[in-house]
């Protein structure tokens, strides 16, 4: 389904990895691990097409993601290191706009209920600048409840989250895999939930 073939990543003067190949089938989760600066974020940015690999190719259902362009983007959701949450907008506005950018138009009640499930009930109308770091992360992750994308690319989704939120996000991942979705995520934490069809990819070794 998702295939990476012979990827090479160079940042500045350093070659972070080369000849990196893997494949991921529906219903599976790929956990990318490794020390800081080993290219985890770069790999994720390559997988979503933000960054072009120096060598190698990424394929989705057999076709290169370069040639698929917007069709590929429609099948994925990427939540990066940065939350993409605007200080001046309310949690609700942030969620609706980021969903719209991702191609899913969400009406207000649906967005409110997603935020409630993420544990932000009653804070929908607060501007994001008064939210804590973990709460902003939740606003960003709330998009996962609304998206119809098949491929989730998550960069450190669990940072700054408390235990309850981590468990909730893991249950979301499990539900997504259940439906035949694919997940690639980077994290330093070990995933607690059993039954996540986890494969590990170690970088920087």
């Amino acid at each position, binding site marked *: 389904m998702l295939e990476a073939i012979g990827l090479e990543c160079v940042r500045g003067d350093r070659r972070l990895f080369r000849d990196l190949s893997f494949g991921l089938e529906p219903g599976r989760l790929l956990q990318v691990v490794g020390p800081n600066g080993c290219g985890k974020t770069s790999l994720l940015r390559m997988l979503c097409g*933000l*960054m*072009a690999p120096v060598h190698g190719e990424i394929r989705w259902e057999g076709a290169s993601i370069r040639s698929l362009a917007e069709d590929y983007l429609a099948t994925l959701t*990427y939540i990066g290191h940065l*939350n993409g949450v605007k200080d001046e*907008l309310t949690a609700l506005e942030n969620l609706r706009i980021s969903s719209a950018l991702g191609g899913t138009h969400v009406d207000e009640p649906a967005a409110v209920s997603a935020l409630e499930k993420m544990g932000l009930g009653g804070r929908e109308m607060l501007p994001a600048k008064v939210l804590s770091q973990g709460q902003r992360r939740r606003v960003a992750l709330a998009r996962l409840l609304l998206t119809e994308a098949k491929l989730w690319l998550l960069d450190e989704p669990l940072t700054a989250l408390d235990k309850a939120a981590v468990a909730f996000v893991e249950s979301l991942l499990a539900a997504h895999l259940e439906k035949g979705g694919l997940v690639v995520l980077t994290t330093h934490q070990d995933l607690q939930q059993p039954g996540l069809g986890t494969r590990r990819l170690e970088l920087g070794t």
Partner: protein
Amino acid sequence: MLEMLRWVIRRDLVLAMRRRSDVLTTLFFFIIVVSLFPLGVGPEMNLLRTMAPGVVWVAALLASMLSLGRLFSSDYLDGTLEQMLLAPQPLSIVVLGKVAAHWLVSGVPLVVMAPVLGLQYDLAADALLILTASLVLGTPVLSMIGAIGAALTLGLRGGGVLVSLLVLPLYIPVLIFGAGAVEASASGLGAEAYLSLLAAFLVGALVLTPWATSAALRISLD
């Protein structure tokens, strides 16, 4: 596609309204620069009248350039720009939406203010009309060309000064025909040719610049 355009414009307008001081800063910069010239060259009305179109246009150029910093950089810093690049729509649409919002916020106030400043320079009523018309056609071009420079310098040290170096030479044709329109009408030559050329620039920029800006954004985020 139109849906996306609407979302982007609306979002940027909401953001601008919640950061009103930024918008006002650009406008006051424009007003102050235009008002400084008589203090520098003396209050001789005939001289001021001939200088007015050029002064107003140069000030508009500088004001529009100053506001370019806001166009992409805050979205770049908080990660929203990544999400925009990943939107399953042509990136040009997002760019067009952002530039349109930028023009509404930074260009339109200049257009509205220009006739008032023209009065300081004792411009005749029809010259004021032509000045406003030239700004209506020209300032969107400034926003669109400026967007390329803003996208290229994203995240670079000294990006603000650099962007002026890249963008100001490219503004020259707009300056020449914008200010030229007012001068031509003042000297009785008729400004139609100038205004239609500005309109042609507008159409050309509309077709070409979103594409160049998208390419620049992809390069800057690579």
